């Protein structure tokens, strides 16, 4: 070993902590190295000096003080909570940053609305989930299908203009589900008169606007809705602490979509409600009320065990007290997933003028394929009132509706449900599989 190596061992040598072999090597080197001898001497003087350092004496009464502390139950860790307040900055900042982040996360969880899948949010999802490729394809589809394509019969120009506006409009419009496009196009190709539903154009425009709001303002709202235009699977709203994206006008029927609509003319909707409630109650069902955004038509839902639907309709119709009268709906047996053409026709023939402004003016914001498809039948009365549609419009539109549903291949919204700005007053519970939901509309007479 050379001097530098020896000197690193000298300290341990002084302390007698070297293993014998190294100790012998060190001693052999020191014998002939004055420099290392001097170094060793310095280390020894240092060690002796440290050992000779004055030893301050503990205060007298040391034992008594210890005893006193023990008797008082003091523990050495007692002051530790104070330390928490006086951590050095390098510890404090990360700790407090983490704490702040945790608080923010908890706060976000508390105030974020739970999943609420409305049609609007489905639109938002559609938009969000569409890939760039889909978006690129969308404009290519649009001109191919619309203004250039001959449409056999155009019932009214403004309607078509609106439709074109939608089709040529912003990207979102073209991103409507593929099923909707297919349905519309198939209807045109088959030569059947298809009505661009008067509601649907402004409705979709409206929905687009709202959809953007939902996209921008409604962060955190996730929808599990399909993007292909089938049935929109709705969760029912849970209280959202006032922070949900406003979705007024969206009908959140979800999977409790009424399979049939019963229209009753009555002066007082509450009488009808009570009456329906009593009948439903006797049949193991219940009534869900909704607050309407406006207009004369009141609407509520009746949820019943499926086997009692017929009984309910019979009892409900029989016990209606004059001047309340049934307009339509209790006669037909309704398949949940098919279009009841008869009821649509009946509605077309009997609905009063009062419904028109509601249907036309209300911005219905349903934007799914189901909505588009179903609106064809729903809007029949409107078209007829415009005096632009031939009398057989209803029947003709009912047929494509059936076809459309077959095309869709999935249970679509029954077309007999008019899309209205219904605002659920309270969320509906999820329906059991064995129950059926009816909608009862009350039309005020004489207006």
């Amino acid at each position, binding site marked *: 070993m050379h001097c530098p190596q020896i000197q*690193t061992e*000298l*300290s*341990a040598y002084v*302390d007698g*902590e070297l293993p014998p072999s190294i100790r012998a090597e060190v001693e052999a080197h020191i014998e002939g190295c004055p420099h290392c001898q001097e170094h060793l001497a*310095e*280390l020894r*003087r*240092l*060690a*002796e*000096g*440290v*050992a*000779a*350092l*004055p*030893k*301050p*004496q*503990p*205060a*007298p*009464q*040391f*034992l008594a*003080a*210890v*005893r006193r*502390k*023990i008797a008082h139950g*003091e*523990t*050495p860790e007692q*002051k530790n909570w104070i*330390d928490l307040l*006086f*951590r*050095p900055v390098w510890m404090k900042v990360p700790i407090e940053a983490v704490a702040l982040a945790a608080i923010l996360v908890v706060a976000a969880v508390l105030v974020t609305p739970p999943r609420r899948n409305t049609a609007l949010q489905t639109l938002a999802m559609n938009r969000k989930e569409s890939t760039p490729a889909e978006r690129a394809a969308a404009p290519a589809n649009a001109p191919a299908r619309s203004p250039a394509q001959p449409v056999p019969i155009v019932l009214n120009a403004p309607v078509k203009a609106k439709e074109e506006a939608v089709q040529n409009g912003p990207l979102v419009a073209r991103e409507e589900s593929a099923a909707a496009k297919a349905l519309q196009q198939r209807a045109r190709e088959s030569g059947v008169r298809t009505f661009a539903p008067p509601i649907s154009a402004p409705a979709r425009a409206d929905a687009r606007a709202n959809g953007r709001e939902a996209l921008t303002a409604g962060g955190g709202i996730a929808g599990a809705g399909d993007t292909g235009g089938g049935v929109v699977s709705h969760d029912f709203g849970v209280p959202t602490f006032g922070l949900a994206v406003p979705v007024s006008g969206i009908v959140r029927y979800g999977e409790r979509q009424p399979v049939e609509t019963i229209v009753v003319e009555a002066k007082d909707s509450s009488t009808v409600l009570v009456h329906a409630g009593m009948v439903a109650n006797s049949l193991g069902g219940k009534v869900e009320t909704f607050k309407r955004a406006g207009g004369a038509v009141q609407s509520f839902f009746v949820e019943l065990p499926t086997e009692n639907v017929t009984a309910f309709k019979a009892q409900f119709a029989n016990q209606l007290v004059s001047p309340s009268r049934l307009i339509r709906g209790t006669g037909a047996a309704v398949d949940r997933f098919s279009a009841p053409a008869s009821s649509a026709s009946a509605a077309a023939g009997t609905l009063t003028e009062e419904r028109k402004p509601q249907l036309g003016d209300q911005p219905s914001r349903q934007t799914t394929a189901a909505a588009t498809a179903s609106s064809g039948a729903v809007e029949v009365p409107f078209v007829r009132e415009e005096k632009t549609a031939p009398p057989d419009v209803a029947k003709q539109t009912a047929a494509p509706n059936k076809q459309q549903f077959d095309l869709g291949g999935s249970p679509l919204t029954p077309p007999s449900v008019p899309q209205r700005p219904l605002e659920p007053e309270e969320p509906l519970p999820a329906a059991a599989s064995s129950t059926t939901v009816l909608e009862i509309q009350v039309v005020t007479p004489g207006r």
Partner: protein
Amino acid sequence: MNRVITPETPAEVTDRELVVRCRAGDEAAFDALVLRHRERAFNIAYSLLLNHEDATEVAQDAFVKVYRSISEFRGDCEFTTWLYQIVVNLARNKRRWWMRRGRKMTVSMDCPVETTDGEMTAQVAAATDPPDAEVARAEFVRTLEERIAGLPTRYREVLLLRNVEDMSYEQIAVVLGCSVGTVKSRIARAREALRQAMAGEL
């Protein structure tokens, strides 16, 4: 119970015996342990804190902790090793506690010391009529004390444990919670730092 508290506990009574009696509930045995080791505990605390008041508090707290956790002492090391371990940990906590408040640990030879007669100043004992060699040595030790106080605590504590408490590297490793190799190299670096700090005095 007949408590006999005398500083002069017979040397033949080992720490281990006192610990056993203490665990059995013998309060006098605990008192004997305190009286036997208070100076060393205080010295270690003082060497780390360089403050009489803090060192007293730490040493007392160390014995309080010994009292409370004597049942946890398994006897697989010397009692002194365990005691010093407690003292070192408490002293480190105290140091951190002060450093958080921006207090600088400085050497103060004449900080007031609380005694039964009130506060007085600690003074290094001086022999009367010292010969020149003794004067020179006292001067050397005084300088050394100042320079040691200027060393990092991690150096100071190993030097004190080694040369003042005369502990082996292995015991120091237990007290400081590090390896023997770390102790060895740290002592070597500490002495080298002190040697350079004492350049011209050696």
